[in-house]
């Protein structure tokens, strides 16, 4: 009886995973299909759409902008979140709850509201739209996510470690640099990659703030509105492969770090 129930659950779960992945599988198939339309049976194998993308200047500019924005916003937000997490969770415990409530807002509020607010704000104080303010706004959101990731790590860390190092003669600065920071490194790597991916995929806020420029998601959106070229599939394939390699690096780095830690501890 129990096994039968489990079998149904297993099949259901398998179907659910199939459902989650089918759209992505379809995109991959049509990236190499030589027909213009999106219908079965498939026409034949081609690299044509890859070549077309390679000669698309706007697409390449979009990719470049996306990388610039993601690299800078991930780095800034990670630095801010490291300081914030140490200060908030290893500082005096007063009012921590209020700050935590405020800091979760960027995670839970619709991006549309955040994007519109930033648009109105920067236009009101007369700062031109463009890449710099997209970076600034991405930081405001990803900072909260990185903070959440760091929080998981720092909460379990006792203050005694830092206190002991100061007792033994370390300055406060070196107690942060040499004691807390190394403990946080796996969470910092995870947080930075997470922030990078948020910025890389972010569309709504960027759409309102990018002005005359473009990023990859904004470019894809414009392509979707003006008819669908299989070029979009090619971009999707490349982005997907890129994403998968980022995830792989993340998982591998965690494993390697744990191994090093195990070795150090003997």
């Amino acid at each position: 009886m129990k096994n039968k129930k489990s079998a149904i659950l297993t099949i259901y779960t398998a179907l659910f995973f199939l459902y989650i992945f089918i759209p992505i599988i379809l995109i991959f198939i049509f990236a190499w299909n030589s027909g213009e339309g999106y219908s079965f049976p498939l026409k034949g194998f081609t690299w044509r759409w890859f070549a077309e993308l390679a000669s698309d200047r706007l697409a390449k500019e979009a990719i470049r902008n996306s990388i610039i924005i993601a690299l800078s916003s991930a780095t800034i937000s990670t630095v801010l979140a490291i300081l914030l997490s140490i200060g908030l969770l290893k500082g005096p415990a007063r009012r921590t709850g209020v700050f935590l409530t405020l800091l979760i807002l960027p995670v839970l509020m619709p991006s549309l509201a955040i994007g519109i607010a930033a648009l109105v704000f920067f236009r009101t104080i007369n700062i031109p739209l463009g890449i710099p303010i997209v970076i600034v706004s991405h930081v405001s959101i990803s900072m909260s996510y990185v903070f959440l990731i760091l929080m998981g790590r720092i909460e379990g860390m006792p203050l005694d470690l830092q206190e002991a190092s100061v007792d033994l003669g370390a300055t406060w600065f070196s107690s942060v640099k040499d004691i807390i920071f190394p403990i946080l490194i796996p969470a910092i790597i995870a947080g930075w990659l997470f922030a990078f991916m948020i910025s890389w995929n972010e569309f709504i806020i960027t759409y309102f703030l990018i002005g005359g420029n473009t990023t990859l998601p904004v470019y894809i959106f414009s392509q979707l509105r003006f008819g669908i070229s299989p070029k979009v599939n090619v971009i999707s394939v490349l982005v997907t492969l890129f994403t998968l390699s980022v995830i792989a690096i993340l998982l591998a780095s965690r494993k390697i770090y744990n191994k090093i830690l195990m070795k150090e501890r003997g």
Partner: protein
Amino acid sequence: MSFIRSKNKNLIYPGLLWFFIFFLLPLSVILIYAVTTRNLFSGEPLEFTFKNFAVIFQKKHYLIILLRSLKISFLTTIFSIIFSYPVAYYLAKRTRFDKALIVVLMIPFWINYLIRTFAWKLILSENGVLNQFLLWLKVIDEPVRILYSQTSVLLGLIYMYTPMMVLPLYASLLRIDDSLIEASLDLGASRIRAFFDITFKLSLTGIFAGTLLVFIPALGSFAIPAILGGTDSVMIGNIIENQFSRVGNWNFGSAFTVALAILSIVLVLFYSKIFGLESIYKNRGNI
């Protein structure tokens, strides 16, 4: 050694300053726009008014869109609970590979959602994959029109946000002690009764946390209805976008945005009042 704590505390200022200037200040500025009539800093005197909000409820057109958005987001949430419950249950109670499967489940989440929405366009269009499949099965004689309707928007939203429901639901189911269920069975409860009285009730935290993660972004979505929807499936997000990119009525657009923001804040506060804020952090799953 409280001097260490007080020195650590100084580290919050750069991040906090950033948060106040680039997150809270912009929100306050649209709040001002929402309750005034003119452009801020235009030199003209500001007039306080609730007119911008009243328009939302007075014009039938806007009221219909508001109610429709609430309906679509509500249905998205309900379906995401129904679809994800068995999966979350399987992951929490019936497999040892749950951690690996959750990593797999999160992969599509990292692939740009515009791209995944585009894939749904391929699936749902008139000569799309779904229609061809149904024709081939001979379930239908001629292609069904699904794309550019409320149904296609709903399908797109359910697809996009159901994984967000699986994570907190899984986390809450994982915490349930199996001996509670065994005890209730020993005491004579039926399996169904044990499920509803224990498992389901204890997973409510997960359901509510998931509701925040599904309902709020669904309500604020604008790309999915723009790509998959037609004229009968315009949502709040599209109205707001239109006000800022074409119509240019910032005061009215801000009122709509503020309404959306307030609604999400109220939901979050309501949740943290019942379950405590820590549980949002705990139920965030694997992010």
